[in-house]
């Protein structure tokens, strides 16, 4: 029973971690909470439903197109809306409201096109199951965990080992100095949105596959859990977001498994509130350095 809960918790935690990493990357370059991230998470599985379940495409091409389309959508949101707001030197809160607006447009657009009823997404991964003692790991769970780990490893390499990543980190630490070094700040931020939205798309599609369905109400719960994961890990920290996501996924699975699933979504809220009061920098976050 315990092992089974751990497997279930790890599966869902891995997807939260993946969304939270993308969210955190965007947060760190702009200090902007991107509310549209949850909408991208929901947008992608609908594209998969359209291409794979309705139009009969293969799963892999449908999945790739959905991730690509969502990434481009995120980049376009930055390029055409947020860049304009930044160039007017408006406050970050203006951008935040803009992302909230974009998320509303996406969610309502999805409802308009697909209806508000739950849409089913047939399982495409039929690779059987693994027995670990008395616990079972389904093929789906294995794919989710392995994919999340691989993508997070790739994201970590991008952030910490590539020139693009250096640019992202430099913008997070000092945007003006980054420009002085020759960093094309707006372009790097747009690319960060592309990566963040694509990560949300991958996580959203995997979760929809796991549950066998998708509906737009997922938006609210995933947004809160992404926030909670990022705050728990230390907002802006990539390893922190991974850790935060896994912890939240585990906790809510345990609450659902040993207590009642009615309260599982409460965990994220309790964590947000507790950490904001007692440890606002999170587990792996850094304190803001005072500028001289």
């Amino acid at each position, binding site marked *: 029973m315990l092992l089974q809960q751990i497997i279930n918790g790890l599966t869902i935690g891995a997807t939260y971690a993946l969304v939270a990493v993308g969210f955190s990357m965007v947060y760190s370059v702009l200090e902007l909470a991107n509310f549209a991230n949850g909408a991208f998470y929901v947008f992608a599985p609908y594209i998969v439903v359209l291409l794979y379940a309705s139009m009969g495409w293969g799963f892999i091409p449908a999945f790739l197109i959905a991730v690509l389309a969502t990434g481009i959508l995120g980049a376009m949101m930055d390029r055409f809306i947020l860049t304009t707001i930044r160039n007017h030197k408006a406050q970050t809160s203006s951008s935040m409201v803009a992302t909230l607006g974009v998320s509303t447009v996406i969610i309502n657009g999805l409802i308009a096109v697909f209806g508000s009823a739950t849409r089913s997404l047939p399982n495409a991964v039929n690779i059987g199951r693994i027995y670990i003692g008395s616990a079972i790991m389904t093929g789906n769970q294995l794919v989710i965990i392995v994919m999340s780990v691989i993508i997070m490893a790739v994201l970590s390499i991008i952030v910490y080992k590539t020139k693009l990543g250096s640019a992202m*980190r*430099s913008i997070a630490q000092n945007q003006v*100095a980054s420009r002085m070094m*020759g960093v094309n700040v707006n372009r790097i931020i747009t690319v960060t949105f592309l990566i963040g939205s694509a990560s949300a798309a991958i996580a959203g599609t995997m979760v929809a596959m796991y549950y066998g369905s998708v509906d737009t109400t997922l938006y609210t719960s995933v947004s809160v859990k992404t926030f909670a994961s990022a705050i728990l890990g230390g907002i802006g920290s990539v390893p922190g977001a991974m850790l935060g996501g896994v912890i939240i996924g585990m906790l809510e699975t345990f609450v659902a498994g040993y207590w009642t699933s009615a309260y599982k979504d409460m965990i994220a809220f309790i964590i947000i509130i507790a950490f904001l009061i007692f440890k606002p920098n999170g587990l792996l976050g850094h304190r803001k350095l005072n500028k001289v």
Partner: protein
Amino acid sequence: MALLEVKDLHVSYGAIKAVQGISFTVNEGEVVTLLGANGAGKSTTMNTIIGVVKAASGEIWFQGDNIAALPSHQIIKRGIAVSPEGRQVFPRMSVTENLRMGAYAYSDKSLIDEGIERAFTLFPVLKERNTQLAGTLSGGEQQMLAVARALMGKPKLLILDEPSLGLAPIIVKEIFSLIKEINAMGITILLVEQNAKMALGVSDRGYVLETGRIVLSGDSKDLLVNEQVKNAYLGG
């Protein structure tokens, strides 16, 4: 031909006119000082040259092209580097990572390795601390890092914005002696300072900036004995 020529530059922040029609030139191989008190418009001028602040009007010619309208990443690529006021190192990056950021505009690996080698030769203390996070360095060390970072791409024009600010006199001396050394490497330097004695001591020519206008210019050795400069910057 001048390496850098600023012509009738105006810069405003909203209603505040920070720079009001200044013109000056920096010739290849020179060290030129832009002298001025706080709020004279020195840093605004620097930031406008590298495109971080946009000019309201005027021209900035670098190597025969007007760069006033270009975005900063294109200006930096042309060979201008800056060590900004207040150092502005990346606090949560190591010394070496900060240096690499200085060569961001270039992708030539040998240039980067060469740059790091040069930085460690010029500033041995940076070599000792190469893995340390820049935010944990002392003010003097951060200043050295900021200068070393600006040198990474072997710029044609190096802009040093108040390198003496907030540093102990002995460190200031060390940094100014390096300005000569850097200039001898063939790098033209535009030095922005309040410390008139030190700055004019290492430069060929100077301009004095007051409330956004150039009020005086000439050879550094003449400015050093000028009554106006003496009264305003050298304590009479």
